[in-house]
């Protein structure tokens, strides 16, 4: 019989192996799923993972979609390390899009070089504001941040819908629920010609590096990690749990808000009823697959971005619904959590215990 035995020390090797194991298992499930659906699994594999990367444009798309994912995930990871469970990044992203996009619409005619920085700052502020609500409710009223931050996702989405259906609707847009297109000064400059990749990527990488330094080298980052690993010890050491919650939520909100304005000032170029195809939720998976570690998160965001592209490609080439992406995202996280068992436990073959009825020393 197989038995799980606690390890004396968490295994680092298992920690880095488990995302690879999970990705491999997800691919196997994909093969089985495609076979059941009557598609050639090799063809599907090709459409999913190879075809999207065959062109320069495709690689650009990969990096473009990875940008918001890594940005949000690195912000969430700071909170998760401190046991602050912000799962409302999708709402904070939407608020970032609303705040930053609002600046772009208000200064529609402006060609000032300050417009874009102002938009980015407003986006960050919007995300932080939206994350501050659960932080306040948690520190002041002890309300569970998981539920409040998630409820605020719906409120933010409805607010955006309200704006693009009403006050901010393009007067020349044939009544479509969308804002005017932003002016050129309000768009992130393209990085590589012939692609949609913009300067959001280097910006995101800089934020990831800063987050790494913060968690690794700053006192506040250290205190957050202690609060997550050993809450009782943190209290004993005088680390303020309020400050940890506020920091964890605000960092997550700032990053998600930046990602939100990055989307509308980047590939979207205007406000639409939805600011993202669920990046805020996918980033939760990215954070875990990346081991809550900035370099790991960058790699995981590329993988998740490929899942998005693969889903689109499968829709075009295999007539599969793009919802298959969400299915694979969930499967990946399941396998990861399952494989993580080997970090804290090792698998042993349990022998049947030898029963002895004789007392020692007696015949």
């Amino acid at each position: 019989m197989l038995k799980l035995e606690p390890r004396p020390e968490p295994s680092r090797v298992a920690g880095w192996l488990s995302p690879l194991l999970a990705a491999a298992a997800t691919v196997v499930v994909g093969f089985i799923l495609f076979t059941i659906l009557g598609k050639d699994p090799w063809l599907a594999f090709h459409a999913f993972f190879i075809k999207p990367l065959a062109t320069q444009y495709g690689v650009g798309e990969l990096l473009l979609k990875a940008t918001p994912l890594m940005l949000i995930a690195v912000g969430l990871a700071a909170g998760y390390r401190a046991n602050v469970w912000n799962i409302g990044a999708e709402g904070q992203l939407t608020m970032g899009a609303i705040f930053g996009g609002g600046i772009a619409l208000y200064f529609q005619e402006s060609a000032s070089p300050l417009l874009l920085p102002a938009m980015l700052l407003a986006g960050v502020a919007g995300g932080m504001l939206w994350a501050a609500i659960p932080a306040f409710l948690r520190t002041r009223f002890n309300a569970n941040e998981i539920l409040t931050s998630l409820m605020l996702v719906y409120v933010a989405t409805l607010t955006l819908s309200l704006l693009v259906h009403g006050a901010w609707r393009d007067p020349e847009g044939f009544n479509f629920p969308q804002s005017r297109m932003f002016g050129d000064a309000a768009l992130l400059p393209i990085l590589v010609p012939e692609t949609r990749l913009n300067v959001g990527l280097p910006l995101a990488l800089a934020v990831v590096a800063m987050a790494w330094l913060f968690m690794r080298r700053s006192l506040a980052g250290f205190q957050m990690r202690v609060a997550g690993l050993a809450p009782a010890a943190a209290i004993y050491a005088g680390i303020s749990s309020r400050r940890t919650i506020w920091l964890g939520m605000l960092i997550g909100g700032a990053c998600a808000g930046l990602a939100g304005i990055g989307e509308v000032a980047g590939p979207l170029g205007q406000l639409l009823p939805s600011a993202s195809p669920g990046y805020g939720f996918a980033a939760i998976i990215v954070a875990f697959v990346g081991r809550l570690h900035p370099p790991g998160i960058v790699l995981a965001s590329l993988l998740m971005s490929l899942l998005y592209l693969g889903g689109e490609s499968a829709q075009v080439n295999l007539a599969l619904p793009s919802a298959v992406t969400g299915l694979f995202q969930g499967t990946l996280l399941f396998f990861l959590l399952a494989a993580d068992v080997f970090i804290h436990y090792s698998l042993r073959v349990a022998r049947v215990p030898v029963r002895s009825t004789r007392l020692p020393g007696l015949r």
Partner: protein
Amino acid sequence: MDQLAQLIVLTLAAGTPLVYPALGELVAEKSGVLNLGVEGMMLAGAVTSFIVAATTHSAWLGVAAGMAAGAALSLIFGVLTLSLMANQVASGLALSLFGIGLSAFVGLDYVSVVIEPITPVDLPVLTNLPVVGKLLFGHNPLVYLSIVLLMAIQWFLYRTRAGLIVRAVGESPQSAHAIGFPVARIRYCAVMFGGACAGMGGAYMAVAYTPLWVEGMTAGRGWIALALVVFAAWKPWRILAGAYLFGGVTLAQFQAQGIGVDIPSQYLSMLPYLATIVVLAIISRDAAAIRLNAPASLGKPFHPDT
């Protein structure tokens, strides 16, 4: 009077999609397991029940299939958290994301399909009595069933030995294990019961309440159900009160449009979510009371060797 009776009937109908998942989650949490995957299990239940109802032309068979789907999904969660000791918060989130993706994927071909729904009971003479007729005899069978379920859970948890064991496992799995109760097996049962209830809640929406299938149709009700358990202080009867309160709030958007209030629908759609936040903040304010009422081992993994 008849209008008031009609309003109460509608409120109960709107609250019932919360009663089932909240009751199921309550039982799971009583055994010490926090399953955040309610939204995913509800959607899986909704889409499964709808597909089965559409293909077999039996809505009741659909309900059974929806329950099975919810239970099946909760079993994945059970394996992760109870056998593999995974973090319950992360696993629950994974289950929700998975359920949302899975239901969108399998339900794609059924978006504009019409089914024969489960309709409110209509008894001769009784339902047509003035005022009390509709109030007592005019609900959907699944609404009556949810109240029966509530009474059954209340009786099970507080009046039976098995219920006492479930609560003991939730309070102190170490003690329960030491006495010789199979902690993991009991928790598996509680989690799967919770999954079946969540599936039932989704099924009620898909084959009785709306009745149709739309991607993400539960619109956060699974998360509201989670908040309801806190709101109810882990007491079954209070779940009913909370669910009907939220049912009434959900109803407000249709009622306001009906009487011609001219404000954008989005404001009214926000109400249930804002109400959840406000109620959660008010209830949670008393941290000591929450600690007193919550099962002591809630959310903590249990391995007999550690």
